[in-house]
């Protein structure tokens, strides 16, 4: 029994990294731009669908190209549809992204069809590794390494580079940063594009595990929101901690009470919201208080 529990905890941690990957783009866009991006799920789906089409034409490069194109779509959305709404009622941005989500999902249905599309992991990554009670498939291990690499790169980018400092400063006090002669419009477009590209990465990497159907958007947006809410809106570290927490909770619930396995993340969210409304690692921000 102990062995099985250990193996479930590890499995949950690995699943947690997938949740982190799905949520991190949402977290960045909210943290930096203050936009609750309901279109995050369809950007995730676009990642999978772009990879599906590119895979047949350019082969393995699809893994890199698909998120890049999703990033471009994100930048286009930000610069045309969201920019006019800055500084207005925040609900407008929420409605706009919700509308975009519905539109892109229909677009996917029209372009690629409603039927699910096969998408397997590359043969190189099939099989699994066993270490004592722990069993991890090679594909999930790959996914974990990619996620950790992305998280590290993002952290370094935001903390240690000039651009990162501008983004962080801009998210706290946009006016002051503009007064210093920095073009924040372009920075915002870039940040939204980055968040979108991260959703695209998650979509590409989840495609071999989950069904590739137009409605895959809804399967990713809920965990993403739950993870971001538990971790603390806009908190980078919070998203990581809560993603792993959700993964482990789901895995352990499946071990002991499988029927409740999709409810457990919402239960966790409710508890966190009651005990600590700003989320586990949420900071107190003048903008949101």
């Amino acid at each position, binding site marked *: 029994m102990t062995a099985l529990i250990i193996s479930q905890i590890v*499995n949950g941690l690995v699943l947690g990294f997938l949740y982190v990957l799905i949520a991190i783009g949402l977290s960045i866009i909210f943290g930096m731009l203050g936009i609750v991006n309901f279109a995050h799920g369809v950007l995730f789906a676009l990642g999978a669908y772009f990879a599906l089409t590119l895979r047949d034409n350019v082969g393995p490069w699809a893994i890199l190209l698909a998120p890049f194109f999703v990033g471009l779509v994100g930048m286009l959305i930000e610069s045309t549809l969201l920019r006019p709404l800055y500084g207005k009622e925040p609900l407008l941005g929420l409605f706009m992204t919700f509308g975009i989500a519905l539109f892109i999902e229909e677009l996917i249905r029209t372009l690629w069809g409603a039927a*699910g599309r*096969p998408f397997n992991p590359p043969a190189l990554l099939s099989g699994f590794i066993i270490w004592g009670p722990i*069993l991890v498939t090679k594909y999930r291990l790959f996914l974990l390494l990619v996620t950790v690499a992305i998280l590290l790169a993002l952290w370094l980018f935001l903390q240690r580079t000039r651009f990162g400092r501008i983004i962080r400063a801009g998210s706290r006090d946009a006016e002051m940063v503009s007064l210093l002669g920095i073009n924040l419009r372009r920075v915002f477009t870039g940040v939204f594009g980055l968040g979108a590209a991260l959703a695209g990465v998650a979509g590409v990497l989840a495609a071999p595990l989950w069904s590739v159907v137009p409605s895959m958007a809804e399967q990713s947006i809920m965990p993403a929101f739950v993870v971001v809410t538990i971790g603390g809106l806009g908190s980078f570290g919070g998203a990581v901690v809560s993603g792993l927490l959700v993964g482990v909770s789901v895995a352990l619930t499946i071990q002991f009470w499988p029927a409740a396995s999709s409810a457990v993340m919402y239960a966790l969210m409710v508890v966190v919201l009651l005990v600590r409304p700003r989320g586990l690692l949420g900071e107190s921000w003048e903008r949101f208080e």
Partner: protein
Amino acid sequence: MKIRDFISRRTLLKATATASAAYAVEVAAPFVITARAQEAIKLGVLLPKSGPYAVQGENGHNGAQIAVADFGGHVIDRPVQIVWLDEANPQTSQQNMRKLLEEEKVVAVQGGISSGDVLAIMPIAERAKTLLIATGPNATEITGKNCNRYTFRVDLPNKVTVQTVYPSLKEHGKKWYFVAASYAWGIDAYNQMKDVLVKDGGTVLGADQAPLGTTDFSSYILKLRQANPDVIYVGLGGTDLTNFLKQLHEIGMTRQMPLSSPVINDSDLWAAGPDAAFGTFPKLWNFTGAHNTPRSEQFATTYQQKNGQPPEVEAWQDWFGATAILTAIQETKSTDSSKLIAFLEQHKFEGFKDMPIWFREFDHQLIQPTLVAQVKDKLVDKYNYFDIVAEYPKDPTQLDSFYGSKQEVGCSLGPI
């Protein structure tokens, strides 16, 4: 405030243009007036547009449309119109069922993939005294203890399908593991198969419920792998089954042991792809195979031409459902549900399967032969996935008793 203040000139112009365009159509097109005289017969379709069964929903709707086209778009000299609303969950289904009945004034409703949704709308059909043909649900109680006079069912009850696959599955061993969706259909599937297995001296190594819409089955698969069963029996459908198969493949368990489920949707396997798809399943109909009749083959050809892919079983079910309703309207020259029901309780449908099929009078179950289909060893075609390994019952005279006697079924329909 004057009216001019809030109707801008532009809006006014636009409204005028629309109104005059509409007027022009009325005057220029006399057929509009004749069409009004013969009011359309509306057929309500309640199938998922979202969620795990969205693909089946779309394919079912495609099938129903072909039935209407088969009738030339008209029945008793009135145009037929399909109104498709979403079957997302029991609550939405109830709301949309009421909308179909009260606002759209449909003459009958067909559809329903999820047994939970169908069980929720059956009482509404009964109260509204309107014919409901449940084309896609499998929970035994729909034509069992929860049956009613207004509901007919095309799909197979779990209690029947488990009998068809059990003989070949038990050859591999009697220690089984179950993973089933945690709602009416999945729970019923588990109970029916478990009864057969345990009665035959088999063992349930584990039985896990998975919420409808589960994306990640890896933790279930870990438990399953640990238990090392002879057979995996799942009550999963739609994207749930696709996810499960993909993740079995990820861990290298594809084709390692037999897999079955109470029913199979072709599109779930097509979505999993040739590397991940496997198993032996009860199947109501398949677009290939010797059992197919010329009429059903014709349907498959038309479907392929219209939709660019062959019909999956749900498409056939909704094609048959709509055909049954339209036939009843044509033969009774009426849209009155009580007359349609009286007709359906008596009529034998010929040409759809290799023996006549009919809705049984005492439980409204479609009495039909059914297949056992096995995923081919080598999948080369994008859609041709199955070999038909058996047809039940083998003897046409056994057909009625195959679905259980009145006593076994335990249905009392109630008055019309």
